[in-house]
């Protein structure tokens, strides 16, 4: 049996790095453990998913320190919104 681990996935690892990094920095900034952030992300995703189809793998979260620290999220939508329904 071949026990060698699979070669790292070749496609678009730069994007994987970018997302891991953003998550890591948010964890560093907030002091939340990454699991807590994952739970938060999943909850946001679940809530928004009731209303529109979101790309859960692409959700980004970041804390920015302005006058008061704020949580920024980017939630990409998969299906285009239908015009005229708003």
């Amino acid at each position, binding site marked *: 049996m071949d026990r060698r681990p699979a070669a790292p996935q*070749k*496609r*678009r*690892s*730069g*994007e994987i*790095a*970018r997302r*891991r*990094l*953003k998550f*890591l*920095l948010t964890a*560093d900034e907030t002091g939340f453990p990454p699991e807590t952030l994952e739970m938060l992300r999943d909850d946001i995703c679940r809530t928004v998913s009731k209303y529109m189809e979101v790309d859960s793998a692409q959700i980004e979260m970041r804390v920015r320190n302005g006058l008061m620290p704020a949580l920024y999220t980017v939630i990409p939508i998969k299906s285009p919104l239908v015009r005229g329904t708003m």
Partner: protein
Amino acid sequence: MSEVIVITSGKGGVGKTTTSANIGTGLAILGKRTVMIDTDIGLRNLDVVMGLENRIVYNLVDVVEGNCRMKQALIRDKRYPNLYLLPSAQTRDKSAVNPEQMIKLIDDLQEEFDYILLDCPAGIEQGFRNAVAGAGRALVVITPEVSAIRDADRIIGLLENGEMQSIHLIINRVRADMVRRGDMMSVDDVMDILAVPLLGAVPEDEAIVISTNQGEPLAGTDTPAGQAYLDICRRLLGEDVPLSLPNVSYGLLGRLAGFLRRA
């Protein structure tokens, strides 16, 4: 009065010393009286990258402790007469010097030089605090990797808390071919994440290995990295040098950041 610039990164191995050597050389080429100080006490390297390791008699700790005068410890570069190195001590450790002594040391060099470059050790402990103490400006060196950027984010936070007047980013070892096929974070990605203005990006270049082997920094030579370093030096002097190297794809954000650099 001279401008005092610390070259730092947090993570080791991203090219701080190479960057220090090449910026020092580049500034000397551009006619500036420049001194490079190796602040990595116990792990001295800048002398080797400069090819000056055989000329060391006294070092930074000797100057601080009064074992010699500053002039005795400064080593003149073999190629550029307006470039000097103050080497670190190899047999001592970080605790041999404190931030107040570093500030005093830098004060003593202010009159003689236009630029004082401090090559900072890796980490965030005393060596880092010593190196940043007297600096008015910081260049944070990163490679486009998760670990290097995470550490840089921490360093930038510490510099901002310490009220560093100016902080710029240098992205080292960029491989345009990997960025193009999506296997490396682009300059844009990094700028988006770190939100610190960019001073320049340096392409991965095997000429760097050769130059380090020879102990002759390549700033200003006809190589991709050599040109990138000279461009970085011109921007340090306030020249408006566009961020456009054939081997580095900057994207819109990178160019915008360059535009806003000295705003």
